[in-house]
């Protein structure tokens, strides 16, 4: 079974000094998917039991990239987080780790889009520096999640990945 950290290691291996544009693009894409699968796995573990086999896998497939980025928006600042948790009547302490994670997720998602679809790169964004930045961001997400995952805010965060759009009802 593919593990999120395998994708991260794969991304790192692509970035050697003589690497080429295709390596940089694949490293960025793998970095994003490492983070995406880290989080979808955590969401599935929170909301689905292990038995019956396959349910967690189906749960992961429900998650949508753009909706996840949108759901992370309240976690980007103290002010928006407190407004959000108060409105939900789910009081939690703000987490700097979840803020870092949410920022990096949005930036990696945007970079992944460029890496996979914008072959012309008219802005001149694609280079080794850009790719190493993305791999480092993904590493930081793994570290931030490791620190944050047992917090109440992290439980709310994972629930938001699935239920965010429904909570307005």
């Amino acid at each position, binding site marked *: 079974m593919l593990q999120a950290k395998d994708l991260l290691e794969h991304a790192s291996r692509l970035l050697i000094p003589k690497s080429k544009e295709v390596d940089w693009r694949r490293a960025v894409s793998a970095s994003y998917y490492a983070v995406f699968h880290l989080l979808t796995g955590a969401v599935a573990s929170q909301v689905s039991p292990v038995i019956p086999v396959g349910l967690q896998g189906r749960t992961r497939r429900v998650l949508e990239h753009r909706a996840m980025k949108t759901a992370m928006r309240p976690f980007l600042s103290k002010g928006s987080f407190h407004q959000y948790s108060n409105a939900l009547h789910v009081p939690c302490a703000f987490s700097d780790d979840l803020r870092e994670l949410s920022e990096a997720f949005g930036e990696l998602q945007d970079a992944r889009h460029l890496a996979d679809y914008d072959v012309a790169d008219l802005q001149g964004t694609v280079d080794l520096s*850009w790719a190493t930045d993305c791999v480092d961001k993904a590493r930081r997400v793994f570290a931030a999640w490791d620190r944050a995952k047992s917090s109440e805010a992290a439980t709310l965060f994972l629930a938001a990945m699935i239920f965010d759009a429904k909570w307005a009802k």
Partner: protein
Amino acid sequence: MVELDFNPQEGERVEFYPQGIILEVLGRHITADGQVLLRLRSLQDGRLFENVTLDWLRYPADVRVRRALEHILPKVSWPEEFQDGRFVVKTDEMYDGTPRIMVNFYLKPDVIPSVEKAGDWNAFYSTLKRQIEPLVDTGDWLQFAAKEQRSALSAAS
């Protein structure tokens, strides 16, 4: 937190912040009682506005970020791989339409980026970001990057 003064001059851009309209300062004068009045032109539709007070105006977000960085950066130590004093602030959109303020630094020509160096640079960005964040609207994405000389040149050409 960085405190920025607001004293717009001719040629600068300002924002009418209740509606997010960006205007260019065409002229300014000071009344006998010391009030600053501006002559403005909308960059969206070219409309002219005369004798506008500063009450509902501020610098646009990218200008606030640039001015804040001009204030902060001389006081912090830069990563040794960055060209001294060189940075550019620009606005664009992420692929999903989220407005973004992008701050680019420039690497010295002989620097070979690595994930380890990127870690140091990201730590540097985090320090800056926490100081600047209060100046940015919640809807704006603030992002930092280090550009290589090669890609900076190709983007400019």
